């Protein structure tokens, strides 16, 4: 019995020995993987959204360090404006803006919107970045602060004191909270405060609070569907205006991201579309629009 066992083991050992050279090549790779793979390694989740904007709202994304993004945001007139207005294509609202990444977390932006001849400037900071590995962060958080100044000329009424410059200003404070649930699905929540220095009547609110939500679902490697919505918290503004809603398609083509949008909002910056959206989707007050972003590399990431 012992002999049989012994010879069995011996044969087995020889067989193993013979098989070893053939397997050795991959064994070395497996061993290398064991040596180099560190499941604790922290990796930041990339590309939660394709662009720095979703539909109306901004996303948690910033242009990377040393990248200058040039954005053209466009809104045509409403689809229900009829054949005479070529279903809205005769009218156009526009915002041109530059965004620059000072670091991979901090970005500055300036923009000019046709509506109200408004100039705006903003700071966006990626406070938290979703990551995997040791001490994984489940969500990303970006903080956005923006100031906008309306520069249209006020009508001067004789005998009435004119409005001062500070009455032209409005501010936006937003916490953008997002999670990339899978390579194709990302969701963002946006508690928002809009402060307007001046409102036309006492009943209107200087401070408007809203809660926004956005979603991105990829349908192919380069195409994604997006949507965002702002729920204005109860108050005069909520009674008078409508919640801004948008649906979009992101199309990525090499150096550009094209975003095609349908929304009930004509304004292009937070202080316009959050408290002042008037379009009624069910009546066909839908603005077709697009955003084109072109990135320029000012400082190379390579050493």
């Amino acid at each position, binding site marked *: 019995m*012992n002999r049989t*066992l*012994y010879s069995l*083991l011996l044969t087995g*050992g020889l067989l193993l020995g013979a098989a070893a050279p053939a397997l*050795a*090549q*991959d064994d*070395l*790779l497996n*061993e*290398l*993987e064991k*040596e*180099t793979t560190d499941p604790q390694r922290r*990796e930041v989740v*990339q*590309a939660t959204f394709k662009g720095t904007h979703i539909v109306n709202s901004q996303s948690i994304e910033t*242009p*990377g*360090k*040393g*990248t200058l993004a040039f954005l053209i945001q466009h809104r045509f007139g409403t689809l229900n404006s009829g054949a005479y207005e070529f279903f809205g294509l005769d009218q156009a609202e526009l915002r041109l803006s530059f965004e620059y*990444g000072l670091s991979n977390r901090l970005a500055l932006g300036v923009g000019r919107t046709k509506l109200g001849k408004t100039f705006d400037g903003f700071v966006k900071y990626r406070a938290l970045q979703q990551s995997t590995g040791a001490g994984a962060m489940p969500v990303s958080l970006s903080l956005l602060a923006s100031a906008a100044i309306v520069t249209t000329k006020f009508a001067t009424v004789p005998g009435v004191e004119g409005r001062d410059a500070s009455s032209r200003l409005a501010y936006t404070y937003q916490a953008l909270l997002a999670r990339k649930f899978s*390579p194709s699905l990302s969701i963002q929540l946006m508690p928002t405060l809009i402060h307007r220095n001046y409102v036309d009547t006492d009943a209107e609110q200087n401070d408007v609070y809203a809660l926004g939500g956005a979603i991105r679902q990829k349908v192919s*490697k*380069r195409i994604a569907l997006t949507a965002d919505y702002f729920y204005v918290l109860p108050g005069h503004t909520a009674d008078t205006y409508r919640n801004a809603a948008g649906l979009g398609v992101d199309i*990525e*083509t*090499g*150096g550009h991201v094209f975003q095609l949008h349908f929304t009930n909002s004509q304004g292009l910056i937070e202080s316009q579309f959050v408290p002042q959206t008037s379009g009624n989707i069910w009546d066909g007050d839908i603005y077709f629009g697009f955003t084109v972003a072109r*990135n320029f*590399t000012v400082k*190379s*990431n*390579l*050493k």
Partner: protein
Amino acid sequence: MKRFLFLFIPTLLAAAGATMAQGRYLTKTGRVTFFSASPIEDIEAQNQQAGAMIDLGSGQVAISIPIRSFTFKRTLMQEHFNENYLESDKFPKATFSGKLLGTNAATLGQGQQKVTVEGDLTIHGVTHHVTVPGVVELKNNQLQATATFSVAPADYKIEIPLLVRDKIAKTVSVRVALACDPVATTPSAKTP
């Protein structure tokens, strides 16, 4: 007797493993760069986190390259490289598993040796058997190995959209430079 044998055989195997480990070199900071020139835009990326293990005794080579560690000039390019081209979510690593041919271990310390590297290159989940020329040298007890070769993205099912097809060259020149330190311990022992 039975018990004794069962104990004895694993010990033998372990001993064999230890002797095999001699002549092994390892790096976790191998440098891999690639470059592609095209009329519109040059594309260049660097990676300093390639892992490599070379066994001089058997001539075996294993290389593992984390795709996400490639740095590009443009942030957007890097994002597209990961998201659309190499799909690093699905295929986080490119690997090579093969052999060094034509090394003369005895004279490795005396200067550069031209060798041939042959084996399986896996990129984007697609494996091809490749043979490329390389250079190895043993310097200051460090095994330095370099190789430059070209890779055609199409061979590895890396799909390039029509719109940017002219921007991206048909072949990409890849350079691998490894400086491996000798592995003193048995392969199963881990450095802290």
